[in-house]
């Protein structure tokens, strides 16, 4: 589920060249250099197959889904629901367990608001949160998997607790039983840290959470694009992912809920297409997933996300993961040879991503120096201020790859990093 099959081969240089041919943006120049895009952790680039799927739908079938009865509308509805099926299969879920969202952030807010709606209605007593209940997150979380829970705690009176990390950023599983107790109602954890790239021991957390009757929410933002994902096998209760990080357009994401739980949740957004009977006084709601899809959906983007899933599946997610491992190793090995570099996160299984600090040089300046050579990396706190604070840093530089990342690109990046300190006149 979360580990790469040992027999999967990494992508060959020839395969990567073929893949690169599918991504028009990789041909652009930046500051007189060919673009070296190492910011896929923020958002990935998109292959022509995905762009074409979206456009073909728009110019052949665009019309209102689940509302219209004419031929175009019926065909559009079919394509839209087929897309749900494809994406569900890609993450190891059933179609009626997948709700479309704009991004992972919306999915996490959906759940946090639905739970607070449940807390204020007698009809949803089993999901109610109140004073004395606990919501558990981790110190590794992206702000998207932290602030919605802070706000839910504020709205319901529940207490927010967190699993801390050690000096290497590893989750302190030794404290798991102490932190996740009978009072825990929700445990929200990231599958892969977007700062560290390390893969978390989800199974241990799920086991403990379920032992105490808490629901588990998985942030699969950084795993869905890079690892074979089987949500049923992981046995989590809810999960979120963003299309734009996995070769799909912006504006589309998925929210997974275990069928029984999803149907037990009250709605979040309300409006058209999620109701049965509406009077001026009250409304009755459809079952999931429609209950959570108020208003006109992101139809073209859903179809594009299915095309992205198909593109990744055609390569094979085990091979995608093997390539990520390879990228990670080359990044870590290379950075280890450069003076004054501190890489964040433990050794071990990782996706193709490395965040680091350059002694004496601010990440913004590192990023600017790299950008001058056409190398795009992310600098800052990567929406994980608490983790940075815990590791004693304000901002770091992050290089993150994808299936189109070549060894040559990594080497250009490493060369640039080793030149940074000379340029700024810092020596160790």
């Amino acid at each position, binding site marked *: 589920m979360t580990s790469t099959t040992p027999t999967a081969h990494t992508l060959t240089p020839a395969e990567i060249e073929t893949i690169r041919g599918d991504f028009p943006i990789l041909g652009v120049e930046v500051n*007189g250099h060919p673009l070296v895009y190492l910011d896929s952790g923020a958002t990935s680039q998109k292959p022509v197959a995905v762009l074409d799927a979206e456009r073909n739908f728009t110019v052949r079938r665009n019309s209102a889904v689940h509302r219209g009865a004419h031929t175009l509308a019926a065909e559009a509805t079919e394509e839209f629901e087929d897309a749900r099926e494809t994406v569900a299969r890609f993450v190891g879920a059933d179609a009626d367990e997948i709700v479309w969202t704009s991004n992972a952030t919306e999915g996490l807010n959906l759940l946090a608001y639905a739970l607070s709606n449940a807390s204020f209605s007698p009809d949803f007593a089993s999901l109610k949160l109140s004073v004395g209940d606990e919501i558990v997150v981790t110190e590794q979380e992206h702000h998207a998997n932290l602030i919605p829970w802070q706000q839910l705690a504020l709205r319901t009176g529940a207490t927010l607790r967190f699993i801390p990390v050690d000096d290497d950023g590893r989750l302190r599983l030794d404290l798991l039983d102490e932190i996740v107790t009978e009072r825990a109602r929700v445990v929200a954890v990231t599958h892969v840290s977007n700062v560290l790239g390390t893969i978390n021991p989800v199974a241990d957390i799920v086991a403990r959470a379920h032992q105490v009757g808490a629901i588990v929410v998985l942030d699969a933002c950084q795993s869905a694009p890079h690892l074979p994902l089987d949500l049923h096998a992981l046995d989590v209760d809810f999960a979120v992912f963003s299309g734009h990080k996995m070769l799909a357009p912006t504006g589309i994401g998925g929210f997974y809920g275990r069928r029984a739980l999803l149907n037990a949740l009250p709605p979040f957004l309300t409006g058209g297409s999620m109701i049965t009977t509406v009077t001026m006084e009250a409304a009755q709601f459809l079952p999931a997933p429609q209950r959570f899809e108020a208003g006109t959906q992101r139809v073209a983007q859903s179809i594009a996300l299915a095309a992205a899933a198909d593109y990744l599946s055609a390569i094979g997610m085990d091979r995608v993961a093997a390539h990520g491992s390879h990228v990670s190793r080359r990044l870590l090995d290379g950075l280890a040879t450069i003076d004054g570099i501190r890489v964040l996160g433990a050794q071990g299984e990782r996706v193709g991503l490395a965040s680091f600090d350059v002694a004496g040089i601010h990440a913004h300046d590192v990023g*600017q120096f790299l950008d001058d050579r056409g190398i795009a990396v992310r600098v800052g*706190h990567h929406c994980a*201020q608490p983790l940075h604070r815990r590791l004693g840093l*304000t901002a770091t530089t992050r290089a993150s790859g994808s299936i189109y990342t070549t060894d040559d690109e990594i080497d250009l990046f490493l060369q640039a990093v080793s030149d940074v300190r000379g*340029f*700024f006149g810092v020596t160790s």
Partner: protein
Amino acid sequence: MSSDELNGLYQQLILDHAKSPHGRVTLEHPTGSSHQLNPTCGDEITLSIQVDADTVAHVGWEGHGCTISQSSASLLSTLIEGREVDDTRLLLEEFRTAMRSRGAIELDEERFEDAIALNGVSRYVARVKCAMLAWVALEHALDGK
């Protein structure tokens, strides 16, 4: 190895100011103070001023950030200490206008002296915020906010 543009952004004077900044002091009797933060990178500055009889008598700041934000704070300190409040406000507006001009407007050498080394920043839209951080803090400190 590095381009002319990059050298234009990171002039030696800027690197020097970032390494040995002016004005990193704590004022005893500030009349105004402001804390500013760049939400993307978490860079912070707290800048204080002491205004005596319509003149910015003293400036002091502390904080951490990139070369651009640190050198900009340092150059600001050298520029405005002893300057009349009204003229300081004018200078601030001139600085903002130049920084937002995408390279179209240069800082006036008579007015900005060494700080014209920051001219290169205005072509780097994403870095303008870094150069502005101390100046925005100055604005708020002047307003007593």
